[in-house]
């Protein structure tokens, strides 16, 4: 990543002043634009957040795309193609936002892609599970996108204008994704016993990933958390746990009403505290997974690696005066 030190000592005082003005602006709800002055801490947090988000959209298309050529009807083929295309589009949109932020550091798209391939740039590894059946495509659309909507909605008012506007558009499209996933799920839930079993197994498979996606409740779990910085700079609003609760609020009743279960016998709504009590996912496993060690992270990175190497001649052919490395 491109985490660089900021100003020299002489500039320091001037920067403190700028910093105060900057904080006043975001606290007043103003949006920061790409060319505005911003503290390095803010820029670096955005770079990290947005490039991870962008790359997660692109990497996230990989588990799902395993089922695109196999989709079981013309209608499903069209639906899942449109959906995965949107995800790639989200990735493209976000990488452009990230590119503007790294420009002052003399970096570009190529650097982001290389950081992905050499493991420096992380993505949402918790979703890099094996997809065993068509039902996984349904669960991804319905619940993984459902979780993504909740976490993205949390940043819809982010202080950084270009990101905030990208999120507006993304969230609009995500609504269709959830509908697409729900429609696959409904067909399976109302289908044969085999189809129902397929659906339940897929849900069991994804459950702990869905809980983990929102991150640990506090920094003590993994030793670091971006929550504080992103909250301080008004990039996000709610905490990890609040988001997870919102997800459970929204989806558990629907899951149960379809006659499905989740792999947690203890899960229940605590009326007194107004929150879901649930079995914690294995946060040690989580620590392992987030450093590109999801069950299929390596395998999916390998796909991108091959594509990158294999298409090198194309990039060279497109380069203005040839010769990209």
């Amino acid at each position, binding site marked *: 990543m491109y985490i660089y030190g900021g100003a020299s000592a002489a500039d320091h005082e001037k920067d403190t002043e700028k910093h105060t003005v900057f904080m006043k602006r975001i606290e007043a709800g103003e949006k920061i634009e790409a060319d505005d002055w911003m503290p390095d801490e803010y820029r670096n947090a955005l770079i990290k957040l947005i490039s991870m988000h962008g790359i997660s959209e*692109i990497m996230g*298309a*990989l588990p799902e*795309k*395993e*089922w*695109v*050529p*196999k*989709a*079981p*009807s*013309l209608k*499903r*083929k*069209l639906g899942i*193609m*449109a959906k*995965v*295309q949107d995800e*790639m*589009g989200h*990735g*493209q949109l976000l*990488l452009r936002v990230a590119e503007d932020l790294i420009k002052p550091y003399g970096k570009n798209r190529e650097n982001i892609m290389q950081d992905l391939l050499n493991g420096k740039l992380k993505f949402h590894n918790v979703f890099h599970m094996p997809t065993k*059946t*068509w039902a996984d495509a349904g669960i991804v659309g319905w619940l993984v996108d459902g979780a993504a909507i909740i976490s993205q909605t949390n940043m819809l008012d982010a202080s950084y204008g270009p990101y905030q506007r990208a999120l507006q558009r993304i969230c609009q499209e995500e609504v269709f994704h959830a509908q697409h996933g729900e429609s*696959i799920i409904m*067909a*399976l839930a*109302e*289908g*044969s016993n*085999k*189809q129902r079993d397929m659906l339940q197994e897929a849900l069991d498979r994804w459950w702990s990933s869905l809980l983990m996606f929102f991150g640990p409740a506090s920094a003590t779990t993994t030793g670091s958390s971006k929550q504080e910085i992103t909250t301080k700079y008004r990039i996000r609003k709610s905490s990890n746990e609040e988001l997870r609760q919102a997800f459970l609020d929204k989806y558990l009743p629907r899951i149960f009403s379809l006659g499905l279960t989740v792999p947690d016998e203890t899960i229940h709504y605590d009326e007194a505290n107004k929150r879901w009590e649930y079995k914690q996912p294995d946060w040690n496993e989580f620590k392992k997974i987030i450093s590109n060690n999801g069950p299929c992270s390596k395998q999916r990175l390998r*796909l*991108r690696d*091959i*594509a990158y190497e*294999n*298409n090198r*001649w*194309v*990039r*060279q*052919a*497109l380069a203005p005066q*040839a010769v990209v490395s």
Partner: protein
Amino acid sequence: MKRIDTAKEAKQNPSYFEALVELLFQLADDDFIISFRGSEWLGLAPHIEEDVALSSITQNTMGHASLYYHLLEDLDIGNADKLAHERQAVERRNASYFERKNGEGSYLQEPYYDWALTVVRQFLFETMKKVKLETIINSSYQPLADIANKVLMEQPYHLAHWRMWLKQLLGSTEEAQNKVQFQLEAAWPACADIIGLGPKAFELEKHHLIAGEDYLRKQWLKELEQSLSLPSSLFVDNHPARGRYGEHTADLDQALSTLSEVYNSDQKAVW
């Protein structure tokens, strides 16, 4: 020329009906297999912008295939999904060149796909599609003419996209030029099959469903010449597999088993 407005009317003349069905299968199967090969590229294209563009084209193309399969359904040939997923290789009428694998490996593992093949194939496909559709808008079968008009609204963007790729690659590094040239040489023998109309070519022209093969060849040459230097005799029909006659390669078997894997796991189920 007598205009036929409905499926019911089309079924009254067996010769007309059979020719129409033949043509619809060619159109549907071409779009269907091209779209399938495109979908295997997802996430593996040379850059992200291209991934988005390619998947948009691929999706439109599947939409076109679906329109033709539904015309066949209207003619009581069978349910559109059944026609798309259940038919065996020998029943397929796509040009066999279009079914070629994208390269070594599979889309799930070690996909060493060839972008030069894809650019050449998509370009030949889109130019062929344009030439055929431009005569089909005057087809005696009105439901088909209507669809041709609709498809022709989107199709110029697809063709422009591949024309640009071809031009860019041919105008750049030696390596790129060589790769494209290699793929062009490999494609020439397939051209007769690609532009061809199969065993009912005579009836298709007689019933004014589409223009005759000679005219199509002439128009296609005009299209191709704008972007390529062509060999002196392009239409030597020595291609080993004539897809329009139901002759196909093992690559089609691979495609069919992948694209109908879930469908075939329970053909009676609603998915």
